[in-house]
């Protein structure tokens, strides 16, 4: 009973607040199904690391400094970027670049929809963050959790917790954020634009050569992006080569599942009350929203710009699918197109732009890192 009272009395208001945030993440993961694979382990982790004297994180217990198991995992898997990179193998194995290769023009929308990253960097600088912190905050706009973790860990590791929470939360909120942003910058007539789709099969050879081409191009233009691009494309290569189906299946399932468990729990090391409950955290979460909105706006406006010069008009909503949140963004765009006109099918174009966004976001992360090396 005495130790129970001691335990309760050792908890401060901040730690209780963080436990409430942990409970909120768990609620969002279970009830709303917002990225549950990451938010639930992070929620549990946030509760665990805010219980005093637990020994889960490195802390002084009875005057002796003890290394916590979560810190050991952090050093093992996040400090050296191992976990995010392993997840990229799985993501690469899950992606079918076919819809993009059928409509290569969609590559450009993946590029345009990274605008939010750089816009947000400027906003963060104006609000007093230094350049490296701002670059890290902007990377939330990559709409890609592992890339955000990777860049954050190199440029501003002290911001890892709030940036990860913001990145995964907004990815889950894409169905809410994107329609509002798209409607703000498009007319009903534009949203009703129909796009003819020519269904062509992409040869196996093309799908095999493509990941190698991406590795070479990204590696020469932005070498710092190669850990991200290389692991992503390695995953895709084992999917497409046709002789490593077992490995591809393991990467898509066991590997991603195992690493997700460890990644979510381990990130919570950065969710202690003293690191998380700061004004900076609120600003970072607000800037994350700015990044997602400006990504969407960037993609849409780029499509509208191209339409000035094109005979066959592009539905500008497709541009918004150029963010990396796959496949949610593509689904949102198709749903919106269908709501405007139930005979409008832009899904394959949106999927093409969406997988292009996967490549563009990791390249963006690499270019940002390149800038500081």
């Amino acid at each position, binding site marked *: 009973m005495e130790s129970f009272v001691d335990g309760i009395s050792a908890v401060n208001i901040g730690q209780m607040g963080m436990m409430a945030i942990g409970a909120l993440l768990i609620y969002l993961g279970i009830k709303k199904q917002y990225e549950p694979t990451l938010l639930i382990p992070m929620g549990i982790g946030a509760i665990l690391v805010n219980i005093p004297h637990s020994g889960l994180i490195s802390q002084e217990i009875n005057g002796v400094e003890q290394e916590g198991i979560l810190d050991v995992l952090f050093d093992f898997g996040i400090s050296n970027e191992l976990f995010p990179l392993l997840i990229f193998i799985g993501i690469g194995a899950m992606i079918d670049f076919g819809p993009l290769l059928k409509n290569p023009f969609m590559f450009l929308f993946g*590029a345009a929809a990274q605008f939010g990253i750089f816009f947000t960097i400027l906003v963060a600088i104006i609000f007093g963050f230094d350049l490296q912190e701002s670059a890290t905050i902007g990377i939330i706009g990559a709409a890609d959790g592992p890339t955000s973790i990777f860049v954050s860990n190199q440029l501003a590791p002290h911001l890892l917790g709030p940036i990860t929470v913001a990145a995964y939360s907004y990815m889950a909120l894409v169905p809410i954020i994107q329609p509002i942003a798209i409607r703000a910058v498009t007319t009903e007539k534009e949203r009703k634009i129909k796009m003819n789709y020519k269904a062509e099969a992409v040869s196996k050879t093309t799908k095999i050569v493509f990941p190698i081409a991406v590795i070479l191009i990204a590696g020469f233009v932005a070498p710092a992006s190669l850990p991200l691009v290389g692991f992503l494309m390695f995953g895709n290569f084992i999917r497409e080569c046709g002789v490593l189906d077992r490995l591809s299946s393991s990467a898509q399932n066991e590997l991603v599942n195992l690493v997700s468990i460890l990644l979510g729990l381990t990130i919570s090391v950065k969710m202690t009350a003293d690191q998380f409950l700061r004004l900076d955290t609120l600003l970072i979460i607000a800037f994350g929203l700015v990044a997602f909105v400006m990504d969407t706006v960037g993609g849409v406006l780029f499509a509208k710009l191209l339409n000035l010069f094109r005979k066959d008009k592009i539905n500008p909503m497709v541009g918004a699918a150029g963010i990396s949140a796959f496949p949610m963004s593509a689904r949102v765009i198709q749903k919106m197109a269908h709501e405007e006109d139930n005979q409008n099918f832009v899904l394959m174009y949106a999927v093409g732009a969406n997988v292009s966004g996967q490549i563009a976001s990791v390249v963006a992360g690499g270019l940002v890192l390149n800038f500081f090396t």
Partner: protein
Amino acid sequence: MFNVDYAALEKGLELMGVGMLGIFTVLFILYLISIVLIKLFPGKERKDIV
């Protein structure tokens, strides 16, 4: 209201220029490579969906 670090802002604008140019460059090259790959290794044509 804001105590803006103009040197950092200038660097941020430079990063924006370098970043967007770099992304468009990489993706444009990939666009061209994809067209070449599709020409070199064509798949079977199906039908138009309107």
